[in-house]
């Protein structure tokens, strides 16, 4: 059995940052489904927020102001102590990345360049052209190489082994050999990413299935605030590839089929740079009321920025527009529609990334501290990954120093290994009549249409009934490929079950929250209800479906007010 003192699952920004933190003192290994540089963090474009004031228009920015914007953006559901902590760590974490080589764009003085982003009072989004996530990801991977972090690639973690309330190991499927492998560790950190693929019209990578969150949930770790799903205002019509908020930060317009900059109706002051939930709803309203274009989209117009600025600041957006939509934004507006983009919710953690299981931590999109509450601000997710990746790593180092027992849980790990092997045999032997890819498509369609941007009881009840039906039909699927080696048919069937479980949690949480807050916008309950729902939703696994309860939101100094932009 392979043993490392610390095992990090997932090699996106959160996982890598955690590993880089612990690897200086402890034997650290990463287990990941794809090589680190393939991780979904690399698709992040616009930037990462910190109140540095490098842009002349941001000279009065401060930790306090960034914290307030984050809390207000969250529709007051973020834990205010956690948001303040994240932002106080922001600048040091970004300087650190810069020292490790991250090629940020520069101001004329040679400092890290910052651009305006939605829901922010000042231009505080540090950027590297429009590929900030890619460059940050490569930088952290490079740092992990410098520190000789051991990486196990193309391993799909299927179980977290817990013994007496303590995490002792994980089971991973080696995708290449088809063998399940047992891993033992003193502490385990998940940085496994979000569940975007549960939805249709997602900007997320195909591997963003929420598999890590499911594994933790299945083993008794609660999921928090899962009904809060962010819809990014601008995903490319057709493929739903992300078109960064930076395009609007640089001055891009949103225009309907009448040629109107319609944001003036919805956010007269902030215009295109309102927070994402509001801009997405505005676009969807235009489309629903017949002011979109055929098929359901509006235009993101960059033409007035001019060729030079587009080539300098938004080269990736231009390439994607040309290659995937046949549109050169220098000459023509880009067709866009809102698309599923981010899960504010996730594995419930405290400010150190710690969970209810000793030695088990989570950071990044798979986790929910919560700093994003009901709506995340653009540029705060990359920040979340590096800050809480680092803080989780730091806390684990402290935990390790206090840990006296070592190498425990071998029997439990071997038992879990056998269980996984048995479950695989059972799944492979399935010769039913249902196509699991079709079930996946139905789930995705149901979630985007019925638990989407605008929600209401009737539609969500239909969605819930559908998910329960799909879970039932899943029992009758067929796996065509009975082999072991690089068996995508099996893997896709396997991960679908976890996705259905997460869809169930999302739909149920959304039904139970009878108010509108941030991204959760109900036509039947259009107002925020602080008296009843100023609370985090907590979902706990039971074999018959999720059990929903609530926990308190931490309020330090900002009392909830109505959001206006």
């Amino acid at each position, binding site marked *: 059995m392979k043993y490392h003192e610390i095992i990090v699952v997932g090699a996106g920004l959160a996982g890598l940052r955690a590993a880089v933190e612990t690897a200086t003192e402890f034997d650290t290994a990463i287990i990941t489904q*794809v*090589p680190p*540089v*393939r*991780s*979904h963090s*690399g*698709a992040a474009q616009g930037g990462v927020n910190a109140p*540095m004031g490098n842009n002349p228009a941001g000279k009065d920015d401060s930790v306090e102001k960034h914290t307030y914007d984050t809390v207000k953006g969250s529709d007051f559901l973020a834990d205010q102590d956690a948001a303040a902590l994240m932002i106080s760590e922001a*600048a040091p974490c970004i*300087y650190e990345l*810069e*020292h*490790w*080589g991250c*090629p*940020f*764009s*520069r101001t*004329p*003085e*040679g*400092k*890290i360049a910052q651009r305006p982003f939605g829901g922010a009072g000042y231009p505080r989004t540090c950027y*590297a*052209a429009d*590929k900030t996530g*890619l*460059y940050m990801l*490569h*930088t952290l991977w*490079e740092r992990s*190489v*410098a520190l000789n972090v051991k990486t196990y690639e193309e391993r799909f973690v299927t179980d977290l082994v817990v013994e007496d309330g303590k995490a002792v190991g994980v089971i991973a499927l080696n995708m*290449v050999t088809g063998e399940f492998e047992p891993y033992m560790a003193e502490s385990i950190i998940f940085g496994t990413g979000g569940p975007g693929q549960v939805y249709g019209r997602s900007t997320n*990578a*195909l*591997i963003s299935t929420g598999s890590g969150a499911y594994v933790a949930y299945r083993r008794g770790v609660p999921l928090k605030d899962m009904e809060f799903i962010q819809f990014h205002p601008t995903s490319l019509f*057709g*493929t739903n*590839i*992300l078109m960064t908020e930076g395009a609007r930060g640089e001055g891009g317009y949103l225009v309907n089929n009448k040629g109107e900059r319609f944001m003036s109706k919805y956010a007269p002051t902030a215009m295109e740079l309102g927070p994402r939930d509001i801009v997405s709803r505005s676009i969807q309203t235009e489309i629903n009321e017949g002011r979109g274009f055929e098929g359901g989209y509006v235009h993101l117009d960059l033409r007035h920025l001019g060729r030079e600025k587009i080539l300098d600041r938004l080269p*990736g957006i231009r*390439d*994607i527009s040309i*290659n*995937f939509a046949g549109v050169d934004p220098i000459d023509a507006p880009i067709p866009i529609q809102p698309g599923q983009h981010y899960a504010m919710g996730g594995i419930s953690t405290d400010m150190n990334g710690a969970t209810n299981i000793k030695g088990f931590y989570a950071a990044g999109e798979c986790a929910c501290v919560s700093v994003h509450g009901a709506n995340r601000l653009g540029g705060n997710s990359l920040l979340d990954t590096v800050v809480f990746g680092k803080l989780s790593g730091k806390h684990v180092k402290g935990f390790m120093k206090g840990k006296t027992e070592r190498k425990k849980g071998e029997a439990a790990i071997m038992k879990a290994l056998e269980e996984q092997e048995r479950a695989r045999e059972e799944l492979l032997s399935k010769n039913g009549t249902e*196509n699991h*890819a*079709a079930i996946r498509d139905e789930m995705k369609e149901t979630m985007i249409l019925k638990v989407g941007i605008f929600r209401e009881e009737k539609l969500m009840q239909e969605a819930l009934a559908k998910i329960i039906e799909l879970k039932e039909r899943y029992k009758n699927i067929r*796996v*065509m*490929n009975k*082999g072991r*080696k*690089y*068996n*995508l*048919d099996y893997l*896709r069937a396997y991960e679908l079950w976890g996705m259905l479980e997460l869809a169930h949690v999302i739909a149920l949480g959304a039904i139970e929250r009878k108010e509108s807050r941030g991204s959760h916008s109900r036509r039947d309950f259009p107002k925020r209800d602080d008296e009843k729902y100023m609370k985090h939703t907590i979902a706990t696994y039971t074999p018959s479906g999720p059990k929903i309860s609530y926990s308190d939101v931490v309020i330090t100094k900002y009392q909830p007010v109505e959001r206006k932009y």
Partner: protein
Amino acid sequence: MAIATKSVKLKIQKYDPEIDAEPYWREYTIQAKPGMTMLEALFEVLNKVDGSLSFRFCCRGAVCGACAMMINGKIRLACETQVSAMLEKREPILVSPLPHKKVVKDLVVDMDPFFQQMVSIKPFLVAKEPYPEKEIIQSEKERAKLTEPIDCILCGSCSSACTIAWWDPNYLGPATLEKVYRFVVDSRDSIRDERLDMVDTEDGVWRCHTIFNCVDVCPKKINQTDAIQYLKRQLVKKKLGFS
């Protein structure tokens, strides 16, 4: 509203080295929607026709580098290649793995040697310590030198297309040398000489015969050959005592 689909034929190279004596082609017919990419076409095959097909994928937005493969005789990223564009060239559309790499199964190749070379050249910035409290100052002009090399997504297309790399497995290859270049031209780096010495070998920059295959296939339009010649020039200058 039903979307008009069209019958499309694909021929995909299949091979499991543990089972098959040699690679073979298998033909598939799928229903293609307008705008369908080659990666989506592979999923159509996997989901509806042949559950045994193996291929790599991740971002489906041309940024992760997972799905480089040979399509209709040229190395491309499957996710950014339109089925319709390939049909204009030939049908059935031919799909095979990255050439001259060991096949793991079907379209999945062994990328370990590629990454082993990559990590052998210190692919990380070594800035002078102690670091400043804030950022290391870098001018816009200095930063502009990084714009091209940092776009590399490590998809392996260039190393797969390089005929020198085919017969000399020890040749560092275009992607690795591009990475060296990325740090050599970074104003913040402090081990420029060491980096140049690292590639001043038979299997380093001198092995490049300027064939430009790497440039032809790079999905990010990076000019690796140019970067390699830059490194050669710096080495010459260094030896002559000009730098």
